[in-house]
């Protein structure tokens, strides 16, 4: 398959690995921002191959991991109301809220359905005028444009039965928050390739300068990741801190202008609570006033999250430490004991992008 085999080529991967080993004169600490990158690194054993040369710490870029508990609770409450059909991405369904996940809510009678795209939810709303369709919109800059487009489509179609529960987050403010932590260890970033496909890489220029940290836009296949790591290590060894694009087949300097236009039209930037990290200034999107009729909060007169909704966060799950790279999943006392993908204590153990799930899947030296 084009763009797949060549980026999984073992010979090329080994060459890059050797180049990294020759370039690095000390151990560098890099953070891969996106959970998809974390999974790929562990799946292909790159972290093990680079032991002692590059320490990879895993960033906050797992969209379901950072979705706040109260948002999941709200989605559950909505899905239990008669006449409402809640829709979301498959990954979101297993993430625990205060009392179970959307999957457990479905077993208890809630109307929860998986869609691949919010546009499918609009299509469904069109063909089911007797139901209220609520799309639970989670994810980073990658998924925010599709939700925005769905809202615009719903407006153009004059749909009265489609609304969104927006929980979209923005990755750069979270990276800034990390760099402002007094004891952070990040020396270089592998920026999230898919987020940058939307935003472009120009937006990181000031960031790299301000924090004197190299930012290398990186893809998801083994060769992509190794190229990103090599570029980052090369910069660090020569004392540079620049923005560099190593995912050229997808990312352009100014991103995807069409996507950015719909985002700008539909959302405004807002502070957002990130699960495990707290409130991140400018860390999310909310619908603009002009789209209030498509806001599920308004349509269903939803109360804002109750303080009790936060009670379970961080009690036993140390998602905040995991998402900021302060703790490696294997070092969490609950990892593999009380917390497994079958009975997760927190979101990072659930998703296909969660760091704990990646360690459980690829690093657990399980006994037969």
């Amino acid at each position, binding site marked *: 398959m084009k763009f*797949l085999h060549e980026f*999984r080529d073992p010979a090329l991967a080994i060459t890059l690995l050797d180049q990294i080993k020759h370039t690095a004169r000390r151990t560098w600490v890099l953070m891969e921002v996106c959970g998809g990158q974390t999974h790929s690194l562990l799946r292909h054993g790159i972290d093990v191959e680079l032991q002692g040369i590059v320490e990879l710490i895993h960033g906050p870029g797992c969209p379901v991991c950072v979705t706040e508990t109260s948002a999941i609770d709200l989605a559950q409450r909505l899905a239990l109301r008669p006449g409402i059909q809640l829709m979301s991405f498959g*990954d979101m369904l297993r993430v625990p809220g205060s009392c179970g996940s959307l999957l457990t809510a479905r077993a208890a009678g809630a109307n929860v*359905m998986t869609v*691949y795209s919010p546009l499918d939810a609009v299509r*469904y709303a069109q063909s089911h005028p007797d139901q209220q369709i609520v799309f639970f919109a989670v994810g980073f800059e990658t998924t925010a444009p599709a939700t925005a487009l769905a809202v615009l489509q719903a407006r153009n179609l004059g749909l009265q039965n489609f609304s969104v529960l927006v929980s979209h987050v923005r990755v750069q403010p979270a990276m800034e928050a990390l760099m402002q932590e007094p004891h952070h260890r990040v020396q270089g970033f592998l920026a999230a390739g*898919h987020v940058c496909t939307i935003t472009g890489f120009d937006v990181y220029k000031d960031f790299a300068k301000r924090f004197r940290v190299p930012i290398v836009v990186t893809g998801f296949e*083994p060769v992509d990741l190794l190229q990103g790591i090599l570029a980052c290590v090369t910069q660090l060894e020569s004392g540079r801190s620049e923005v560099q694009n190593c995912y050229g087949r997808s990312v352009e300097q100014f991103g995807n202008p069409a996507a950015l236009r719909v985002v700008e039209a539909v959302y405004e930037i807002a502070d957002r609570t990130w699960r495990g990290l707290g409130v991140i200034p400018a860390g999310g999107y909310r619908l603009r006033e002009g789209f209030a009729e498509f806001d599920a909060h308004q349509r269903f007169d939803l109360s804002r999250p109750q303080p009790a909704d936060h009670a379970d966060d961080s009690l036993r799950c140390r998602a905040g430490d995991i998402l900021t790279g302060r703790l490696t999943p294997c070092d969490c006392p609950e990892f593999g004991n009380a917390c497994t993908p*079958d009975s997760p204590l927190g979101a990072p153990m659930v998703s296909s992008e969660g760091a704990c799930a990646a360690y459980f899947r690829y690093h*657990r030296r399980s006994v037969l």
Partner: protein
Amino acid sequence: MTDSFSWSPNCPIPVTADTQRISLAHGEGARLSRRLIAEHILPRFSTSKNRGFADAARVTTVGCRLAICTDSHTVSPMFFPGGNLGSLAVFGTVNDLAVAGACPRWLTLSLIIEEGLPLVVLEQILDSVAAAAGACHVEIIAGDTKVVPRGAADGLFINTSGVGELVDPVPPGPHSIKVGDKLLVSGPIGQHGIAVMSARDSFAFEWATKSDSCSVIPHVTALRNSVGGHLRAIRDATRGGVSAVLHEWAQECGHTFALTESQIPVTEDVRGACELLGLDPLYVANEGTIVVAIDPRFAEAAATALRQVPGCELAAIVGEVQPQGISPVTIRRTFAAPQPLDEPSGAPLPRIC
């Protein structure tokens, strides 16, 4: 019939069931039930013509050992590229018998129908049941029909139970798997799961992938005729995919199953869909693809024999059995070091981005 009701103005309105859809009355044991069975079900199964409405079918076997299995089938949507619920219900049970080393002979057919199912849909499914049974040379010799209220089932559930005659040499089973044995798959993996997913309304994708749903009797026969006495275990890799089978075997025999990713056959379509959805083909369901463990000296012969079977041209040796290692199942991907391959945890859900 209308005349016969006209004499009594006080008589309740007669049941004039909508003949186009299944109603609860079709399951209440009265005339409509009998007509459903007599007019729509029995005629499709020629072998049952002379058996009528007896309570039990009678069969005769001569001194052979039997294998018996049962499986309930539900799939949403009922029709998908490469098959439907009817063919699936036959092949599913036939394949369970075949991989156990049996020649499938008889099936029972139990229908649980949701009120409101269009009769034409039921007929299409039953036609597929009949065609699949014919292709496998199995007789459908007993059956049952129930109708449940709307909402109590998802259109149609089918249970089939099967009886087959064991044919020597019967593969001894996973407990006999030894270190050094080789692992084979009979063809490209993950096609059924992706085909069903592509047929779901919620995915606005169109993939060319067809389900691999078929009988594996030819696969097992080819193996039996070529390397029969050297087979350890055969399994059809249905729900949970190849990974689920190997995890079950690992638990039974206590060894580690080591796969090499580059040797595992996957079509470009399935590969692309899995990449897009964030799934691993090793966890995606198959309905006509088998996993085989065999004495290593006969692995090549087994692969060659399988490749003669239509649909199995890509059969391949994909791994080997090793002493207990880091994980029950491991896989070598980009680098030489094996990585653990986790046991599937529930149905695979597509990722976000």
